[in-house]
């Protein structure tokens, strides 16, 4: 039994190691001047997508709930985090300090939304849950598009639909400006912070999975009725997984919003949620390391295809379909297993 445990531990450590290795590799490459600007600029987004993929895997893979609203939580996190950073520009001069607090605030706000959305919707199952989470994501986006928040004389003012409704005084400033969103959030995200956040995400998700709580979540996924019969509180654990996943997405949102000078709600539509779902499914449902790898590969792929101009997204689509069929089609799996078997047999023969 201990050997199994050790295997699991090594497996987990390998995942951390992979992340740390990426960091070291990147540092080494930039130290020796082998780094292109393009790759350099992609480092923070890759970290962000890895966090998103791993956190969505917690909902989809571990908890077994199909969510199409992950981008909504990211949106909430991004806006609350950026809002804080801009609001406290004078009160807390250190950008790093503000950014760290913003990360916490983003995660907490998203977790809060995870809970209030999760309570009603987690009763639904399968495709109904999918459409409801999609709907929530779209509602969040739609509302963020018409909300105005300003501050004057130490007072926060919130209005809908038009800036004039804020009734700001002369010295006031608008922080969230409807469809324009938040502009000029100072750039605080770095690759190192991104990697640290990835490690935190992995730490939370992996430790959660390999604990009493994680077992309960997976048990509910595998068989809800049996889980209830052994005394598990279904709502509690489903909600827990959902809100932890939401809060990590919120954190990724803060990382996103502190990487770009322009933050707008339109980015966080269902296409974004689906994009993250693609990472999760392609990496293997429930497979954390798979999520990491597929997030990296699929973020890089369209960027590396830039040379192809117009054919870029076409190729991306074809690659996606082929990979899905190669990975999931029963006949493809069988063929691959036959091939592997043949290969192994050959190896053993050679060894003999």
């Amino acid at each position, binding site marked *: 039994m201990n050997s199994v445990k050790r295997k699991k531990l090594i497996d987990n450590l390998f995942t951390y190691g992979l992340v740390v290795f990426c960091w070291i590799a990147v540092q080494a490459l930039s130290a020796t001047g082998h780094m292109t600007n*393009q790759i350099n600029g992609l480092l923070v987004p890759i970290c962000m997508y890895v966090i998103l993929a791993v956190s969505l895997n917690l909902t989809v893979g571990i908890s077994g709930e199909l969510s199409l609203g992950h981008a909504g939580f990211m949106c909430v996190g991004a806006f609350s985090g950026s809002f804080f950073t801009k609001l406290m520009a004078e009160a807390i001069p250190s950008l790093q300090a503000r950014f760290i607090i913003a990360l916490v605030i983003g995660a907490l706000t998203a977790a809060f939304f995870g809970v209030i959305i999760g309570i009603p919707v987690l009763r639904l199952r399968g495709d109904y849950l999918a459409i409801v989470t999609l709907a929530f994501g779209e509602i969040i986006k739609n509302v963020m598009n018409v909300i105005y928040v300003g501050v004057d004389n130490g007072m926060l003012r919130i209005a809908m639909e038009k*800036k004039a409704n804020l009734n700001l005084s002369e010295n006031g400033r608008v922080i969230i400006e409807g469809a324009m969103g938040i502009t000029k959030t100072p750039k605080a995200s770095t690759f190192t912070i991104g990697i640290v956040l990835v490690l935190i995400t992995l730490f939370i998700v992996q430790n959660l999975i390999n604990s009493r709580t994680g077992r309960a979540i997976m048990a509910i996924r595998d068989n809800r009725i049996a889980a209830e019969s052994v005394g598990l509180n279904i709502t509690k654990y489903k909600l827990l997984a959902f809100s932890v996943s939401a809060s990590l997405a919120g954190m990724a949102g803060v990382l996103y919003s502190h990487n770009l*000078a322009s933050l707008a709600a339109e980015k966080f539509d269902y296409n974004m949620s689906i994009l993250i779902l693609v990472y999760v499914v392609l990496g293997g449902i429930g497979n954390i390391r798979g999520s990491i790898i597929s997030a990296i590969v699929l973020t890089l*792929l369209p960027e590396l295809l830039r040379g192809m101009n117009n054919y870029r997204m076409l190729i991306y689509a074809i690659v996606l379909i082929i990979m899905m069929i190669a990975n999931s089609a029963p006949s493809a799996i069988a063929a691959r297993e036959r091939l592997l078997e043949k290969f192994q047999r050959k190896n053993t023969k050679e060894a003999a």
Partner: protein
Amino acid sequence: MKKLIGLSMAAVLAASLTACGGSNTAETTAATTDAAVAQEENEDGTGESAEEAPSGETFKIGMIGPLTGDAATYGLGVRNAVELAIKEVNEAGGMNGYQVEYKPEDDEHDPEKAINAYNALKDWNMQILIGAVTSKPCIAVSAESAADNLFQITPSGSAVECIAEPNVFRVCFSDPDQGKASAQYIAENKLATKIGVIYDSSTEYSTGILESFRPEAEAQGLEIVAEEAFTANNATDFSVQIDNCKEAGAELLFMPFYYTEASTVLKQCADKEFAPIFFGVDGMDGILSVKNFDTSLAEGVMLLTPFSADEAGSQAFVEAYKAAYSDTPNQFAADAYDAVYAVKAAIEQGNITPDMSVSDICEAMKVAMTEITIDGLTGSQMTWTEAGEPNKEPKAAKIENGAYVMQ
């Protein structure tokens, strides 16, 4: 393990495709875990160090805009016009005697992708950037270009914040200017007093114009009787919005959004027999070139625009553009075309040469831009302020007999 095989397939595919794509000379290294690493290892000589040492014989101008996705029609216009203008410039001897190389990159109208595009262009040793085409990506890119001190001129980034950085200039009007100018024009020409507005609440362009239109209209004694929104998600059926404006007794319909939606609104207004004065902004420009659009629907539409494809001064450009891309240029294309000539003028004014560093070029350009005056498609005697804002008069055009007529 199975998944790993699949993913490594992808990695191999990605690497090999890049190789034949020609932008990088990547070997088909199959790194399962980190395609990035594989990529980087093959990037000898094009790293940061190389950036400081451009070839010195040609100017390298990059362009960023949406070439795919919902907003592609704007980005493609800019891309084509820049390409056209640079071809002309090169044929006429280049800028300050140097030939110009040009490379467009797609941002899909997404700030995140715009940064990626920017970085890809930096790897190409871009010295001057024309873009980004749309406001939000433009703002995102401007933060990066400011950090690099790289000269940027956006043809069409109209939000105020687009040129907040000192190194960024623009060719088009800003959104607030347009809103204000529209209200003033309506009031001065006594077009109407009761105004209905339909706008796109999901874009900053539309809301930005409306935000400044509102107070100015009020100041001018105009009454906004209806204010109806749509969003990108439901930009197909405008019947409710039109009905509401009609019922409120609007004599003029202010339409601060792009011609794509405007053409639909006009058709639905016609279906509903609602015929106020239609008043658009520069985004309306291009409506006549929409394929298969029944131009009689746009008869009498007024718009504030600096450019008209039918104007005498722009004939040559329009002809050349049509010949090259079998498409009528829109105002985005015109702005982009002007941007290239503004860059050319500034380079020559400041006697800038391609062997200068990116930062030096930027500093020189910043000064030169305020010193030049050009007669472009989108305005005659255009000059620029130090803040990067162009000085040009918005002109009102009216569509008569299927053509823009300057008022």
